[in-house]
């Protein structure tokens, strides 16, 4: 009898090479499935078990996952864009136009990067509204809300630094205005402005600094905080579900004890 695809896959999962990479091995018992999550460097950030109702669309509208999705698209499209973009005053605008009109698929990659960036900002806010109105920011998840606010700032800073890179009039004046807002900080404002731009005006140094921030420092920092954000979901007891919150469970237990007491009295 011919083997099914599933059986072939099970055979593959039983091989020595596969087992050397994925320790959990074959089988679909609860233990094996839990191990598959727990022993994977990426998946171990998440809970090994999730209530199926928490994965329903209505629970979260998948806003956090969609935000991660746009972030991954931004990384995947941003790196190829770096191959054609020189962060220098004479070349930046010309390279942007080349990407738009000359480079094969350049238009597609650049537009995908741009629209994903817009979508990410929108989704981050939508995610925060959803979390806020469900009350999922409350104890024990307060710290993850704080991490989320940091991630919101990261998202906005990534948008802001990326805005300068096309080096057109819109970018130039937006960054002039934006960096002047930093000067409004008491006492150290002017110094922050000077360090951010690497000079007194938006110029070659500012372009290079924003490029390094946009392509290296901020994405790495964002990944760092995203990892903490996901790990905290597990540490704070999984995705928020009102029925499973300790306070709700305790309140329910109290009510049922009281009800039992009343029933016992009536029986006497």
């Amino acid at each position, binding site marked *: 009898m011919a083997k099914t695809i599933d059986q072939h896959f099970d055979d593959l999962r039983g091989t020595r090479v596969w087992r050397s990479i994925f320790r959990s091995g074959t089988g679909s018992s609860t233990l094996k499935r839990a191990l598959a999550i727990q022993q994977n460097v990426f998946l171990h950030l998440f809970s090994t078990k999730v209530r199926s109702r928490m994965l329903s669309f209505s629970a979260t509208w998948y806003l956090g996952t969609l935000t991660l999705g746009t972030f991954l698209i931004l990384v995947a499209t941003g790196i190829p864009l770096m191959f054609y973009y020189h962060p220098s005053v004479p070349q930046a605008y010309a390279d942007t136009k080349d990407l738009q009109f000359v480079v094969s698929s350049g238009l597609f990659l650049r537009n995908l990067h741009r629209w994903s960036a817009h979508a990410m900002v929108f989704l981050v806010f939508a995610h925060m509204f959803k979390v806020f109105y469900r009350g999922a920011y409350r104890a024990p998840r307060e710290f993850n809300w704080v991490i989320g606010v940091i991630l919101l700032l990261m998202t906005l800073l990534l948008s802001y630094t990326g805005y300068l890179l096309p080096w057109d009039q819109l970018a130039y*004046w937006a960054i002039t205005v934006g960096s002047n807002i930093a000067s409004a900080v008491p006492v150290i404002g002017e110094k922050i402005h000077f360090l951010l731009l690497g000079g007194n005006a938006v110029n070659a140094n500012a372009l290079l600094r924003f490029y390094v921030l946009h392509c290296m420092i901020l994405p790495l920092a964002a990944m760092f905080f995203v990892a903490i954000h996901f790990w905290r979901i597990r540490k704070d007891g999984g995705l928020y579900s009102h029925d499973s919150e300790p306070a709700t469970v305790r309140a329910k237990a109290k009510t049922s004890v009281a009800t039992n007491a009343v029933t016992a009295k009536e029986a006497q």
Partner: protein
Amino acid sequence: MADETKTIGDLNNDVNRRQFFLTLGLGSLGIATAGTAAFAYQYLDPNVLYEPSPVVNEGKPDRYPLGSVTIDVNSGIYIIHSDEGYFSLSAVCTHLGCMTAWKPELNLIACPCHGSKFEQNGKKIEGPAPKPLPWKRIWLNDDGDLLVDRSTDVPALARDSFVRV
């Protein structure tokens, strides 16, 4: 034996070997951290800037007819020929650094970004701008050209803030 050690420890102000090395280690780590922070700050603070000179040559005074307001967009300044003489005004809005423009039909200076308005002498009329447009030092060089130092503010409407030819 144990008592002896204790006595020696007491004589040395209760610092035993473990505490000593812990303090030494944390102390050097702290110094290294502070040093790294200072090093990083100095590195990120440019010592040399390849920016345009703050002093710009605006040419012969007769380029500017009486009553004219002329913007030099590249330098971000106005050259204004008033009845009192020539003076120079920063064209950079004091709100958030946009380039203002002279509106001859309205007889005022306006900022396109957030709508601040200034008089011809830099005085603020309205808008989010917190301060008037600063006056800049202006003088004639030996060749008879008008020079403006963009890095030096001078008092508005003061006698010495004008150039008379």
